[in-house]
């Protein structure tokens, strides 16, 4: 267990965001994960991103399935409602929650076991529906909580801690996400705050389904030399395709990057997303190219990170279903119950 001491006293000089809140206000309970677990870094990045975006914590709901990764919502955003559901089923719970109130932010955290095995069906379908949420998969190639079995994202060339070969093809969640309709698809690394925080910020600003596959090493069961989801392997095989900035509404944009290398994207809430491309020829707006890129780098033994795919057409499930603007959970009896007079008409149609 990692106990990071957090003094309770408020420091008057802590930096504040637009809401006058400090980072502290976005923290959660003490983590009980193994010291050095990648998942804790993702929690820190979530805290930082929400702080920077000045998100009112109570306007965000955090949801998860079951696993070490799915435990983490306890460790950030104490003032948000949280829902630790059942193994692999967070997408359905998030869908229902979002249908009930379209005005909140929804942040789902899952693991590779939770997402790519038991929950693969729900994961696929939530993307088809373009639910407006951020879905982070803390991907360590293993089942941490049940002590180190291979997961379905484990690469074929990877070996277990005891040297056992992985016999089966792996599932690339980012490629799958692009294929199935996710509008924002990124991959990052738990240890790379500089890349991960802006990605989470951008994902939270995006309307539609935003998926971030975060390679997040399990130090206890899958961080050995022959694992392709280890700190070491990642550092040696990473190729970043670009990095992001999110410019909130009304703020001036100053681009310091050579023209042709940056893409500016308007976000529905009035802010802007700035994507700085490292690889000039890479176009995150093309589904086909994005999937090709993932496959190419895989053949080269590389892991690409950054924003891999972005559909600028921001649309979500509510747009498809034509749900009314006002959140459904705020409608009252007068909005909902047709009343006796209408019932009489119904009676008539059956008489």
């Amino acid at each position: 267990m990692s106990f990071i001491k957090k003094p309770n006293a408020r420091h008057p000089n802590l930096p504040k965001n637009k809401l006058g809140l400090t980072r502290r206000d976005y923290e959660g309970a003490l983590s009980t994960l193994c010291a050095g677990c990648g998942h804790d870094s993702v929690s820190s990045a979530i805290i930082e991103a929400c702080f920077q975006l000045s998100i009112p914590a109570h306007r965000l709901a955090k949801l998860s399935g079951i696993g070490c990764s799915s435990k983490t919502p306890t460790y950030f955003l104490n003032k948000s409602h949280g829902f630790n559901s059942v193994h692999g089923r967070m997408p359905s719970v998030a869908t229902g929650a979002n249908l009930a109130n379209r005005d909140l932010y929804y942040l789902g955290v899952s693991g590779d076991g939770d997402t790519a095995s038991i929950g693969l069906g729900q994961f696929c379908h939530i993307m088809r529906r373009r639910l407006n949420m951020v879905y982070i998969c803390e991907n360590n190639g293993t089942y941490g909580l049940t002590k180190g079995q291979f997961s379905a994202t484990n690469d074929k060339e990877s070996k277990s801690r005891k040297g056992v070969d992985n016999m089966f093809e792996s599932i690339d969640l980012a490629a799958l996400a692009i294929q199935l309709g996710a509008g924002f698809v990124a991959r990052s690394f738990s240890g790379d705050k500089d890349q991960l925080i802006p990605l989470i910020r951008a994902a939270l600003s995006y309307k539609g389904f935003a998926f971030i596959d975060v390679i997040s090493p399990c130090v206890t069961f899958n961080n050995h030399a022959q694992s392709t989801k280890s700190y070491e392997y990642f550092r040696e095989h990473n190729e970043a395709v670009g990095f992001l900035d999110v410019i909130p509404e009304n703020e001036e944009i100053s681009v310091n990057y050579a023209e042709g290398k940056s893409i500016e994207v308007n976000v529905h809430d009035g802010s802007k997303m700035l994507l700085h491309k490292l690889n000039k020829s890479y176009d995150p707006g093309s589904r086909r190219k994005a999937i090709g890129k993932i496959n190419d780098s895989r053949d080269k033994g590389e892991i690409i990170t950054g924003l891999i795919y972005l559909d600028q057409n921001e649309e979500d499930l509510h747009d498809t279903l034509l749900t009314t603007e006002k959140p459904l959970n705020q409608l009252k009896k007068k909005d909902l119950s047709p009343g006796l007079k209408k019932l009489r008409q119904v009676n008539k149609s059956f008489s």
Partner: protein
Amino acid sequence: MTKVNDFVIKFANVNGSGSASANLMFAKTIFRMGIPVSPKNIFPSNIQGLPTWYEIRVNKDGYIARRDGVDCLIALNPQTYQSDLKELVKGGYLIYDSTMERKFPRKDINVIGIPMASICAEHYDDPRQRQLFKNIICLGALSVLFKIDISVLKGLIKEEFQKKPKLIEPNLHALGLGRKYAQENLSSDFGLQLKLMKQKSKKIMIQGNEASGLGCIFAGATVASWYPITPSTSLAEAFEKYLHMFRSDSKGNIKGAVVQAEDELSAIGMAIGANWNGARAFTATSGPGVSLMSEFLGLAYFAEIPLVLFNIQRGGPSTGMPTRTQQSDILSSAYASHGDTTQILLFPSDPKECFEMSVDAFDIAERLQTPVIFMSDLDIGMNDWVVDELTYDDKHNFDRGKVLSAKDLDSIEMWGRYLDIDGDGIPYRTIPGTHPSKGSFFTRGTSHDAFAGYTEDGRINAENLLRITKKFNKSTKYLPKSIRRNAKNKTDVGLIYFGSTTPAVDEAIDYLSEEGYDINKIRIRSFPFDKTLENFISENDHLFILEQNRDAQMKFLISNELEVDINQFVSILNFDGSPLTAKFIVDEFKSKVKNNKKIIAKVKKSRTAA
């Protein structure tokens, strides 16, 4: 001798031949003539080609259960001639398509041939039209035989095709062809007659699922997530229909959302997520779906999230008899999910009660913060029943239960999601997004303390579980009460029943009473069981329990929950998948009594005393 308004007509058809709407029109005509009628659709798990039947019982005394023995068979499916023929009563009528003339191996019945196909061939070229109008021609001929008020039937055809007015004339024409043939060729001394009656109260003819879907609208449900499965599908579809009818604004925006999920796990997950977030949400399914939902049901039970789950039961186990009726999910629903779980059950007995209980189910679920499983079945859900008009009290407000508003939270010093403040075991809940700094908590299926914090302290977990037990023990005051009725003469013979067997029970008890058997009866309407049932059991020495499953599940549940001796109950069980008949109950009851001298003595004694 002519039978008036008291007989059974059975249509034997081929699935997918367009017979369903003609059959329904026939039943509806009888209904409109004010005569008590109960149609039962007996259909295979198939889309086209297999046999399907439509059985209509007409009964002037108002008995609407199924009845054995067919008085008039409209045999339009040569595949089933042989077995259908056996069901015809002596002196009954067999009506068939005599385009190809046939001999039937029974001397004691009347055979009436109508050359339906050849009339069609003469008047229509298009094969599909020939098929469809054949049914209407048949209807025309029947209207002559049964002396049906033709204006009623014509009116129905006009309504039926209101949205496709082009079809009205051709249908009326086909009807005329059938009538003409019958008038010119068939003898007028047909022994079954339909005569106009006056209805005592205003009635409607409606299916349970339709009424439930409508009930969900009146209850203010906004989210429905479901996965198609017979016999529950029509419930979600009805909800969607009424959602568009009553809750869409001028811009076409809708105050509600329906999602066809990828499976039942997802369907219930969505309903739970929506309820957790303060919307009223439900899912509808049947046995196989409930099995898939059981992990989530445990979560909703333990994390105390309201939920309404419609279980429209069908024949099990496994895929079983998917298009037949049973009451065989009692135990698997009452104790759905692993660990110590109990679920609230509601048992509607007809479509009117489906409407009323659907409205109530959401209040109950939110009041008790737990799933409510609505135990309907295929017979109620998918058959047309004649019931009193639906009513709704405009003054009734939704009972959202113990939900804290931002103002409430401001005025509260200490709040814990699972704190039992009122001593009724029901804690206070908060909805995400309510208050900037108060009332957030972590919903979890792991063991938790009164503040929703994770705990592995077994003592605290046990306390929490006992609080939930308390909540359930006190739940009956929010649930529909059992309805009991004592026999005219004093007796200590009692019959316990529930759900769709109700009409058969009512009829059977009348017959038995005529034969000198007095029986007190009680209809269970919810679980956990109420005091009324407990009293009934202690007041009656000879108890029968009627249910439609093999394993006497309700008997087990009662004995287990009320801690009464299981051996005091005599089971009457039926699980052939058909809606129950009064005769079945009468025969079973008598044969069980025959072997029980004590009961015979009782029955006789009470009679002499009276």
